[in-house]
């Protein structure tokens, strides 16, 4: 039977990325939280092949700005829109690449796409999702699968 990474796997991978490059402290990312309901930034990478779907990283706009500030080592107030796109894209790429390593292969990983707002993947459904809090701001990581494969 095909192994699909669990929500715990998504959390472990996200914690590893965050502790390596953003906080240096795994406890900076808290499990749970209310999820996202407001202004958000979404980073997404797509997989095609033995597994077809997407890995999506969504966070509040303030969390996206703070993440970019941490990656670029600048003050949050100095972060530009393109730096947010770069940072959230790279974070989605890292989380996505590590999730891909746990999925059946071979599959191709796309370049990341980043939008300010919500993103939906036509014909795909969420199969795993984990909600976290970073600096009291919501962060959600989800694994999507094309409905034809999920059926």
């Amino acid at each position, binding site marked *: 039977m095909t192994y699909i990474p669990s929500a715990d796997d998504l959390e472990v991978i996200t914690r*590893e*990325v965050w502790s*390596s*490059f953003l906080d240096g402290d795994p406890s900076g990312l808290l499990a749970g939280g209310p999820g996202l309901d407001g202004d958000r930034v979404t980073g997404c990478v797509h997989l095609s092949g033995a597994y077809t779907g997407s890995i999506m990283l969504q966070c509040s706009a303030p969390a996206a700005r703070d993440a*970019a500030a941490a*990656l*670029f*080592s600048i003050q949050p107030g100095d972060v530009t829109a393109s*730096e947010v796109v*770069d*940072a959230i*894209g*790279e974070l989605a*790429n*890292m*989380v*996505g*690449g*590590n999730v*891909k*390593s746990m999925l059946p*292969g*071979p599959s191709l*990983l796309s*370049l990341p796409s980043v939008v300010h707002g919500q993103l939906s993947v036509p014909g795909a459904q969420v199969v795993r999702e984990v909600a976290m809090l970073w600096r009291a701001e919501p962060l959600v990581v989800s694994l999507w699968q094309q409905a034809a494969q999920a059926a």
Partner: protein
Amino acid sequence: MRILVVDDSKAMRMIVVRTLHLAGYEDHEIVQAANGREAVAAISQAPPDLVLCDWNMPEMSGLELLTALRSAGWEVPFGFVTSEASPAMRDQALASGAMFLIAKPFTPEDFQEALDPVLA
């Protein structure tokens, strides 16, 4: 020694440079390129002692860059720094002429383990 860092993400290039410093390579000259084509231009101008390259990039992927370099007879030491690190990708990287593959996220110790044999 001259190290060329190739990644389409400016944030990741900065992280790689910071990690090189933390790993003890702060005295090396570090130059950057945003994709494979820029890297070819930089290598043509001044061949580096090591290329640290992302795998998945627009314009020209890391693997395409490595293949182009080897086809042109450039034997510059080359390592991947990538978010994908499955055994199949490691095998593909090594078969194409890479010396190592460092998985993102990484630590300064990961860099030392991979780079020390090349730069020592």
